[in-house]
Structure formats: C-alpha cells, structure tokens
C-alpha cells in the first residue's frame, strides 16, 4: 500500500544528520497564496497580523492550531508533509511556537543606516537533555538562490548538548550548508541542529516560516518500517570484508562522519547515533559496526 510516511533510509539519515529535506513538497498554488499573504501582512509591518500566521497558545494540538480554512493549515495537511511529520513526532503533535523570519536585502538594510550581519550560529531554545525530540519545520515558500542567504546549518550537530548562542564563536565549520532550494521546500530539522541566518545579497526579501512541534506519543517505529530487514541489525566483519557493503545501509548511514568531526568525538557521535536509533527502533540490542556492543561486553564475575 502506498504510504506518505518516511522510509527507514530517510529515518536513518535523520538520526545521523539531523534533518529530512522535502524539495518542492508544497505546490505552487499554496506557495503563491502564502507569499501573497506574507507580503500583504509584512509589507505594512503588522507582525503576525491577520490569519496568515495566527497567534496560537503554546501547546495547542496542531490540527486545532492551524485549521483547514487557513493557508498554513492546508499546507500542514499535505499528505507527504503530514506523513513526514507523523513519522518523526507522531499524530496529534503540539504547536510549540511558530514564526516568520523576514530578511530584507542587505542593500535595503544598509540604506536605512544599519549593518547587514549574518546571524551567529546557535541551537534553538536552551540546554535540552531529553531522550525524545522536537522537530522544527523550515518552509521556504519562494525559490531560495545562493545569494539570498538561505539558512546556514550544520549536518550532524543535533545530538550535541550546548546552550543556544554559546557556539556563536564558531564562525565557519567544515561541512556547513546553506539552504538553496526550489519554492515549496520544507526541511524537517531535529531541534538540536546548529543553524543561523545568512546575509541576503539579492534584491528580494526572503521569507522563512518556521514551526516547532512537540511529540505526544513515544517516538518509536512511527515511520514506514516495511523496508526494515534483519540485515539492518546483523553484526558484520569490521575488517577484511570480502562482500561489498551497501553504503546506504542503516549501519553505514549511522557511522558516516561529517567533515567537522574531531577524530575522537566523531566516534562518540557514532555511539550517540546508535543509542538514538535504538530508541527509535525500540530495540536495546541494535548496534552498528560493533561500536556499542564492545563497550557493553562486560562478563559478570558472579558476585
């Protein structure tokens, strides 16, 4: 049966890199409708005015927060987007907060006597040591070209425990990405992803709608698990491997490094991803390339 849920591979990428990207998942008609509402609203400086981005009490169920008569409500009900959201935080997630980031061209900011600066790298909210996770949707209703200062983000940073802008000193990091995407693209980010806004060097105002969702159910096997196989959990030889391994297997995705990884803590990242995957899978025995089993191998002395 066709499903709009994420696949096991998509989920492994999310566990490993901290995001899922859905290019042009919102159709042109809804993008144009939303953009037109945004331009009308923000063009007259009525922040959160009208019904485009309704003021909703934090903790409201998403279906009640954004109703189907609203453009945003129609977007959040798109089957593919809804399937991805429910794969990560389940049904009946809660709207934590939402916001529209409006970034005028640098030339307009400078003409008004202000400096156009990039936003420092940061992690949203504050120190968060939960085992569960929130997601943040970054929805770009217009095409984002490389001169528009699309969101800068660091793949694989989501499991690091830091405190908001304490990481601001990290001006540039190997492997950092800048969002460049077609209109209607949505990134579903783990709440811990390090990110920041860049400078808009184009002549167009850039809009980003961002919404944070909290789960209300245990985040265990919420995705389409029909492609999950026993091979995903089978221990393999570490060296002298004669058979070609699938580079996209769950184990390989979870143990693929990022360009910014330190040599020692990069291994800790693998271990933390494996623990994350165990929770998603509801299986405390899962391992990837023996990284955690080795540390758990402690025979009892029969005390």
């Amino acid at each position, binding site marked *: 049966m066709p499903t709009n849920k994420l696949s096991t591979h998509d989920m492994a990428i999310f566990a490993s890199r901290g995001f899922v990207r859905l290019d042009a998942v919102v159709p042109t008609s809804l993008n144009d409708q939303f953009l037109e509402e945004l331009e009308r609203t923000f063009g007259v400086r009525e922040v959160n005015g009208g019904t485009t981005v309704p003021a909703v009490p934090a903790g409201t169920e998403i279906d009640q927060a954004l109703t189907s008569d609203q453009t945003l409500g129609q977007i959040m009900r798109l089957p593919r987007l809804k399937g991805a959201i429910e794969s990560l935080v389940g049904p009946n997630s809660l709207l934590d907060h939402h916001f529209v980031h409006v970034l005028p061209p640098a030339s307009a900011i400078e003409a008004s006597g202000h*400096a156009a*600066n*990039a*936003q*420092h*790298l940061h992690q949203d909210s504050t120190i968060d040591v939960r085992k569960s996770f929130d997601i943040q949707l970054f929805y770009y209703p217009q095409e984002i070209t490389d001169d528009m200062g699309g969101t*800068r983000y660091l793949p694989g940073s989501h*499991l*690091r*425990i*830091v405190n908001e802008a*304490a*990481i*601001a*000193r*990290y*001006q*540039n*990091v*190997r492997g*950092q990405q*800048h969002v460049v995407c077609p209109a209607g693209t949505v990134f579903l980010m783990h709440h811990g992803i390090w990110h*920041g806004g*860049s*400078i808009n060097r184009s002549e167009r105002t850039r809009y980003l709608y961002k919404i944070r969702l909290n789960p209300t159910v245990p985040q265990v096997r919420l995705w389409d698990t029909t492609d999950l196989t026993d091979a995903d959990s089978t221990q393999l030889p570490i060296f002298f491997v004669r058979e070609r391994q699938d580079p996209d297997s769950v184990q390989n995705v979870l143990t693929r490094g990022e*360009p*910014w*990884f*330190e*040599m*020692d*803590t990069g291994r*800790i*990242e693998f*271990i*933390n991803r494996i623990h994350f995957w165990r929770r998603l899978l509801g299986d405390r025995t899962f391992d990837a390339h023996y990284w955690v089993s080795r540390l758990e191998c402690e025979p009892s002395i029969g005390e």
Partner: protein
Amino acid sequence: MLVLYLANSALDSPVTAWARYDGAGKVRHQAGGDEEPPYATGLAALQDGWRLIQASPLINHNSGDEFRTGYFKYEFFFEKLVSEENDRLE
C-alpha cells in the same frame, strides 16, 4: 585574531572550524562567510606568522559524562599584529 578548531590536540592536525576577528577594523568577517579555512592546520598558521597565545587543555572525562558531546574540544587562539605602515607596504 584567528581561532582555529582542530581535529585533535596536535597543532599539525586538520582545521575543522575557524573564526577571524580583525581588530584593525578593515574586514568584518561574517558567520558562514567562508567555505574553506584560511589554513589547513594549526601549524600552517604558525608558519605564516600567527602567534599561538592560547590552547585548550586536555581535560579528563567526568564520570557519567564520558559520551556527552558539546563544544569543540581543540580550540587554538592566534594573534598577529599589523601596522598601518605594513598595510600600505602590502
């Protein structure tokens, strides 16, 4: 000022992250403004005249916290003094 984050505690290990602050006020380096680091290693910065003024100590792992990752571990601060005259010569 030049801040380099390296792949391990050795100064000749690869740069993984970096920041630059121009106290002379000529350039405002922006977050996310570079894709490639100014030097491949900390040693390469030394060889180009930067003076190392601070390095992260190696800290034992607290019990129960051994697997927590957070801030980058191998941070090195460098300085280089420039003069208006030298700027003109360059």
